[in-house]
């Protein structure tokens, strides 16, 4: 298996470049639907990075939530803004400069954080090749049920999981309630 080219790295760079290139395309594009399309490609490349890292569950989650969520975003974008046939958005120079400043600051902080954590520096090729393949879905599930497989005391995230679940349920019910109330009022007026 000793080869000159380390293919995982090649694929990592391939998907990373795709993700970044389409992220830049989102910023530079003026048409809202094309933007959404580029955003989907960028997020899908991120999902590919997760699959590359062996995190099947997170990758599928990325596809379902982010890429699927962009779909809904796109629909709202079209429905709420389509006064003309093709909507284009123009950004003023001041907005652009502020956005570049904020974006650059965030990028700097993230890069600094990523480099400064010693655990994130990677293993090196020999150590990486020695790691065994483990399933990810079952440990995640066990962790959410309160029995982490990698923790010494088998602690877990049961309470947090329950709080988030109930919170999401409340949000869902609230959304349904709001949509319903609006419908009643409009029918009463009309």
């Amino acid at each position, binding site marked *: 298996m000793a080869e000159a080219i380390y293919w995982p790295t090649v694929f990592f760079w391939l998907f990373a470049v795709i993700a970044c290139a389409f992220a830049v395309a989102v910023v530079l594009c003026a048409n809202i639907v094309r933007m959404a399309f580029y955003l989907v490609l960028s997020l899908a490349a991120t999902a590919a990075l997760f699959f590359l890292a062996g995190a099947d569950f997170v990758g599928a989650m990325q*596809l379902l939530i982010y890429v699927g969520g962009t*779909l809904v975003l796109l629909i709202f974008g079209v429905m709420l803004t389509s006064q003309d046939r093709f909507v284009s958005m123009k950004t003023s120079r001041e907005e652009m400069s502020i956005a570049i400043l904020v974006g650059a600051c965030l990028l700097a902080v993230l890069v600094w954080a990523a480099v400064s954590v010693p655990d994130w520096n990677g293993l090196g090729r020999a150590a990486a090749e020695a790691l065994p393949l483990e399933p990810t879905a079952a440990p995640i599930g066990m962790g959410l049920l309160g029995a982490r497989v990698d923790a010494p005391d088998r602690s877990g995230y049961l309470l947090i999981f329950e709080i988030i679940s109930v919170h999401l349920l409340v949000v869902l019910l609230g959304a349904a309630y709001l949509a319903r109330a609006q419908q009643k009022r409009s029918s009463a007026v009309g």
Partner: protein
Amino acid sequence: MAEFLTQYIPAWLAYSAAALVHIVLLINLIAVGALFFIWLERKVAGRIQDRLGPTRVGGKFGWLQTLADGLKLITKEDLMPEGADEFLFKIAPYVSFCASFAALMALPFSDSDMPFVAQHLNVGVFFIIAVLGLEVFGVILAGYSSASKWSLFGAMREAAQVVSYEVPLGMCAVVPVLIAGSMDLVYIGDCQAGPVWNWFIFHDPFTFLVFWVYFTCATASVNRAPFDLAEAESELVAGFHTEYSGLRWSFFFMAEYGSMLAVSLLASILFLGGWHGPIPVANWLGLTFDNRPLLGYLGNVLGCVNILAKGVIGVTVMMWVRWTLPRLRIDQVITTCLKYCVPIAAVCFLGATWWQFMWPNGLLLETPVAVYELRENWPEAPAANPPATVAANLQRGAI
């Protein structure tokens, strides 16, 4: 397969060759499947409407009809409406097709010793449902970029429909996952080994009910009649593909037939025993890897035939439904989803949980205790988890 090839040729060549074989097989499954299903659709429609369907092209039964259709489509002019968004208009059919193809990538076609699967994921169910939901993206792009109000209406309807039907579809797919205790499709299929009463559809009354809900939602999510509002010709000319012609148009249809086959195959793995036939013939004949690799391989081929037969039967039922039931209105479609499918699926999910809790081994099924086995295999209280890097995980076999 790639591991096998690396013994003889360099690794990069082996992986490329293995990937190429998988891709060619799956694309052929979609393309040849579409050829066959379009012919079948005409025949089924004909028989249901008391006529013969195609009879002339290619001799008996008109079995070359689709090829003639294909030739016609290739020779058609590739039109694009004035004022359309060129880039999105051109790319939309491929987006649909890619989603439908990617779903088949994680779908196993036979047994667990050496499964016929392009990419064995341990979250297969989840991946397939996530990817199938993306097919609608191509439809929305097509509808929007066509610069036609019919297309846009069709796309919006499709979007509303698919987004709402994903909820009950996911709830239904969770039930077999719950019974098997795994999201790995190969494992779920192998839980149902043995005779017909081991299939999850006969596991308990709730799974029997939930199968029909799944089938309804699957029909809706692949946009087939009676849920084909996105292309309702009586109101919307042809819906989202009004402006498409020729080969681009046919890509939408290949995608549609591909995802019909994908949801049918998924249904057969989740509920109908997957690659296990109604009678365990393969075991009686000794077609397992324990005996000889060649016999095991034959058993796998038999399993592949089994699951494809189940998939084709599923698609045929969808056609039967299409030519029998009238098209629903959009409010009826959403009502069916939110007022019937979601509550039934939720109750069945709770019921199946309760059943599993009361009779963990089922009444007839011998459920393996995979979760507990997994638990014992985990390292006992490690000091710290080794930090995983992308490269490390990748080397461990993510590609």
